[in-house]
């Protein structure tokens, strides 16, 4: 996810820094959180004010909703991780297609990359099938062996 966000970036969607990404992932994982709850977990080494201003920036970028809870805010994600990932992918592909003078060139890189990825996936699936075939064969052989023993 982090890789997708940092490689592809955003233009219509806001660009995220590493700490913003980290906080967003924390909030996705928890469902909702206050700044104090985020710090209480112990995974963040930043100061309270740093976390607070970063979360506030995420709110202003439209990625979080917030509601008042006592004297603090409780933050909730406005978009799901999948939605953000999809937006990032679409935006990245759009930028890739616009990057060359002719659109067919970057498109051919994309097809090449997808084909290479597909070939790897198909090789993995082929291995799984062969393993399953061997498993079924050994099962049927052991069944035959038991049948002959009974006779």
């Amino acid at each position: 996810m982090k890789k997708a966000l940092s490689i592809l970036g955003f233009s219509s969607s806001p660009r995220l820094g590493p700490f913003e990404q980290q906080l967003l992932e924390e909030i996705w994982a928890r469902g909702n959180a206050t700044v104090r709850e985020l710090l209480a977990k112990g995974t963040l080494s930043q100061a309270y004010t740093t976390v607070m201003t970063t979360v506030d920036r995420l709110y202003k970028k439209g990625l979080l909703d917030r509601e008042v809870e006592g004297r603090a805010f409780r933050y909730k994600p406005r978009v799901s991780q999948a939605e953000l990932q999809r937006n990032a992918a679409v935006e990245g592909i759009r930028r890739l297609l616009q990057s060359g003078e002719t659109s067919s060139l970057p498109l051919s890189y994309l097809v090449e990359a997808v084909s290479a990825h597909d070939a790897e996936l198909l090789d993995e699936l082929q291995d799984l099938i062969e393993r399953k075939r061997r498993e079924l064969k050994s099962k049927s052989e052991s069944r035959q062996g038991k049948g002959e023993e009974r006779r």
Partner: protein
Amino acid sequence: MFAVREIAVSLTFFVLLYCCFSLMVVLGWHRLKTLRLNEKSSADILFLARILPMLASVAMTCAFVVPSFQLLEPRGIEEETGMLPVAFGIAAMVFIASACYRVIKAQSRTARMVAQWLERGQIERRAAYTVCSRNDVPPLTLVGLCKPQVLVSDRTLGILTGNEMEIALRHEQAHISSRDNLKKLILQFCPFPGMSQLEMAWAELAELAADDAAVSSADDAVDLAAALVKLSRLVPVRVVPICTVGFVTGSVGLRVARLLEWGKTRENRSRIPRWIPISMLVGTAIILVVTYSPALVVTHEITEFLVR
């Protein structure tokens, strides 16, 4: 003028009902995924949900709007038709024309491409399929609406074993039984924004249902998975005509994973019991009979409101 008003009002009702029902389907079809049904039943339900707006709006227009206008609208009085029914009537006609255009375009493109495959390549007709020796022909695909036939590239015959070929043909036979090519064409007649996800989900489930229908043992499942992987390497990167069903479509990874787990995935899900659709139909018919007269009156009141 009476006939013009009747047509305008009927078309207005049709287009309003179609938009309302379609919007309901776009917003609510995801809930259908929570039903624990087998793939065939799920695919059937999704297809029904997809075409329900068209079916329901045509049925309600014909069953209520036209009769209420015919029976309850006084013919002697000349009323002016308001702007609303005229505008919606024109919108409905544009919609119907565009739907017809989509159907004709999809079918003619498919027919043209299939004709190209069959004319330019060497053809060998066999009992269960037709072999075509062209590089751009998909490895295994189902073409045709009324008399569907399975088209196989000669490279496919070269790489599949006898068992794999037999199971793959059984898979296509399941698509023939479900009339999936015809269903794809019908979908073209029901355009509405936001339906593409539902259509993709249906297509995916139709593939899984055909996989299930083709397989009757773990060995069959492995053979079908092997055929899928082998043919995936042959699929040409190009647009496939709408009204065809390719063997290698949907998520190959998911399909192979399901096939390798054959037996475990089948046990959990059930078919829809026949009594449910039958009782729903009977119930609807009874409600219609009981409430028909008051419903006509209400429809006519709405008609009057629209006309003015």
